C-alpha cells in the first residue's frame, strides 16, 4: 500500500461531509464513511452499494433524474431534506449531485442540522427586531450606505418622516436630520472615528410639520472591520425639548408679574447687547423703583402690594417696545434694557413710563383707587452690563434723593 493512497484513505475517513461517487446505473464506485453513517439509520445494509437505494431517503426519484440527465454539471443543487431517525431528534441533510464526467456522478451530503437551527434563530431574531423597529413610536430606525444615503427604510421612518420607502431610499441623511450647518461628510467621519455621533436639530415630518430630532448615527463595519454604512436612530424629541424650554422659562420668570427675573434678564440682556454691538448701535438701561412701596404694603396689605406690582409691570410692558426687555429684580425694583437707544432717547422713554404709571388708577381689595409713582435711573450702556446697571442704580438713588417721582440720568 502506497503512502499516497493511505493519506487519501485517511482524508476520506475524516472528511466532514459525505461523498458518494456512482455511475448512471447507480453502482457506488466509492463512498466515504460519513455518507454511509448519515444514511445508515434509514436504509438496509444491502442497499449501500446502490446509490439510488442509498440516497432514496433524500431523493426518491434520483434514478429518474439520472436517467433523464442532459449533461449539465449540476444535477441537484443544495436540496435540504429533514430526516427523522427513530427516537432521535430530526436531522437536516443538505444534498447536492454533480455530474463529474459523462455517466459519472458525485453526491455530496452535509449534516446542516446545527446550521438550520442557527438560521432559524437568526430569522426569529430578525423578525423580533423588525417588529420592534416597526412598532416604536417617536423613533425612526434605518440604515445608510457609507456616503450617508438611505439604503434601508421601514414603517418607523415612514411614520416619523412621512416618506414612503421609494421616497426615502437614496435620500441623503442631511435632508432628513439637521447637523446645524456641519457638513454631512464631517459628521460621518466623526461617526467612523468614534463609532458613533449624535446630532440634534430640526427635521421635517409628515405634512411639512417640523419636529426637533435627536439623532444617533452608529457605524456599521464589514467582516474586515472597515466601515460600510451607518445605523441611524432618529428620535422625535419635540416633547422633551418643549419640556426643557418650559422648565427654563419657569426658572427665568418671576411668577408674580411674569416678567423675566434677574437670571432671565441677564441671559436675555447679554444676547440683546451682543446684537447691538454687532450692529454698532447704542443701548441703555433703566432702573425703576416704586416710590414708598413699603407704605402701600403696610397700609393696604400684601395682596394689594402684589396688585400694584402687577399693574406697574403690565404698564411698563404695555408702554415699551416688543424688543425692549423688562425684568423684576426683586421687591419693587425693575430693570429695563432698551436696545438701539441712546441715553438721551432713554430719558424720554423713562419720562413716558413715569408719567404713564403716575396716571394709573389701581383698585385695592377694599375697592379704593390707589395711585403710585416711580423713580427711574437711566444709563447708556458703557462697558459691560453689570457696571451699567450700577450706574443706573446710582442715578435711581439720586432720583430718590431729589424727591422721587422723577427721572435722573447717570
Amino acid at each position, binding site marked *: *500500500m502506497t503512502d499516497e493512497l*493511505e493519506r487519501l484513505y485517511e482524508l476520506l*475517513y475524516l472528511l466532514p461531509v459525505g461523498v458518494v461517487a456512482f455511475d448512471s446505473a447507480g453502482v457506488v464506485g*466509492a463512498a466515504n464513511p460519513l455518507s*454511509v453513517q448519515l444514511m445508515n439509520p434509514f436504509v438496509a445494509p444491502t442497499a449501500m452499494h446502490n446509490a439510488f437505494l442509498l440516497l432514496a431517503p433524500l431523493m426518491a426519484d434520483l434514478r429518474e433524474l439520472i436517467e433523464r440527465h442532459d449533461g449539465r454539471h449540476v444535477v441537484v443543487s443544495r436540496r435540504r431534506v429533514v430526516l427523522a431517525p427513530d427516537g432521535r431528534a430530526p436531522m437536516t441533510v443538505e444534498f447536492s449531485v454533480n455530474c463529474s464526467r459523462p455517466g459519472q456522478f458525485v453526491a455530496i451530503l452535509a449534516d446542516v442540522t446545527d446550521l438550520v437551527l442557527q438560521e432559524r434563530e437568526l430569522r426569529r431574531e430578525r423578525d423580533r427586531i423588525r417588529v420592534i423597529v416597526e412598532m416604536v413610536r417617536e423613533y425612526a430606525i434605518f440604515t445608510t450606505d457609507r456616503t450617508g444615503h438611505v439604503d434601508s427604510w421601514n414603517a418607523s421612518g415612514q411614520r416619523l418622516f412621512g416618506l414612503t420607502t421609494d421616497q426615502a431610499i437614496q435620500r441623503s441623511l442631511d435632508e432628513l436630520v439637521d447637523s446645524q450647518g456641519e457638513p454631512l461628510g464631517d459628521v460621518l467621519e466623526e461617526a467612523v472615528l468614534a463609532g458613533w455621533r449624535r446630532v440634534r436639530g430640526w427635521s421635517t415630518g409628515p405634512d411639512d410639520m417640523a419636529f426637533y430630532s435627536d439623532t444617533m448615527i452608529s457605524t456599521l463595519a464589514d467582516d474586515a472591520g472597515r466601515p460600510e454604512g451607518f445605523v441611524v436612530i432618529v428620535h422625535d424629541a419635540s416633547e422633551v425639548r418643549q419640556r426643557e424650554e418650559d422648565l427654563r422659562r419657569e426658572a427665568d420668570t418671576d411668577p408674580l408679574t411674569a416678567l423675566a427675573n434677574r437670571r432671565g434678564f441677564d441671559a436675555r440682556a447679554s444676547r440683546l447687547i451682543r446684537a447691538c454691538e454687532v450692529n454698532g448701535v447704542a443701548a441703555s438701561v433703566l432702573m425703576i423703583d416704586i416710590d414708598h412701596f413699603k407704605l402701600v404694603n403696610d397700609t393696604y396689605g400684601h395682596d394689594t402690594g402684589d396688585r400694584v406690582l402687577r399693574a406697574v409691570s403690565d404698564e411698563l410692558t404695555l408702554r415699551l417696545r416688543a424688543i425692549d426687555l423688562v425684568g423684576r429684580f426683586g421687591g419693587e425694583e425693575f430693570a429695563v434694557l432698551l436696545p438701539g437707544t441712546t441715553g438721551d432717547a432713554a430719558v424720554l422713554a423713562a419720562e413716558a413710563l413715569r408719567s404713564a404709571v403716575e396716571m394709573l388708577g389701581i383698585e385695592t381689595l377694599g375697592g379704593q383707587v390707589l395711585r403710585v409713582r416711580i423713580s427711574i435711573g437711566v444709563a447708556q450702556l458703557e462697558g459691560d452690563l453689570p457696571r451699567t446697571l450700577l450706574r443706573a442704580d446710582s442715578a435711581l438713588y439720586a432720583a430718590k434723593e431729589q424727591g422721587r417721582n422723577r427721572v435722573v440720568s447717570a
Partner: protein
Amino acid sequence: MTLPSWQFEDSNLYDELLAATDVELDEVPFGVIALGEDHRVVFYNAAESALSGLSATRVIGSHFFTEVAPCTNNFMVAYRFQTEESLDATVDYVFTLRMNPTPVRLRLLRRPGERRQFLLVQRS
C-alpha cells in the same frame, strides 16, 4: 508457535486477546483494534490494516472515534464504550473501507480495570 484458532464469536475471546502477544494478534483473520482507557489506539492488527488501508504506524496513538474512524463516533459504537463499564456486544454495522460501503459485524469488548478494550471487525 501454533497459530491462534480463535473465532470471532468465542465466548472467552476477551481473555484470549488480553493474553495474546501482538505478534499473535497480527495472525488473527478478523480486524482487531485495541484501545486504551482514553480511546487512543494502542494496537491495530494486520487484518484491520488490510481492511481499512491504513497502516498501524499511522493509526497508533490517535484517538479512534474522532481521529481514525469518525463514522463510529455515534450511539451505536463510541457512546457504548463511553457509557458501559462492562461491554460484550455484537452489532451489525456498515464500514466504509477503502471507499466501499462494507457490511460488517462489530464486537465491542470492555471490562472495568482492563488495560485494553477491543473493537473487533469482521466482514459479514
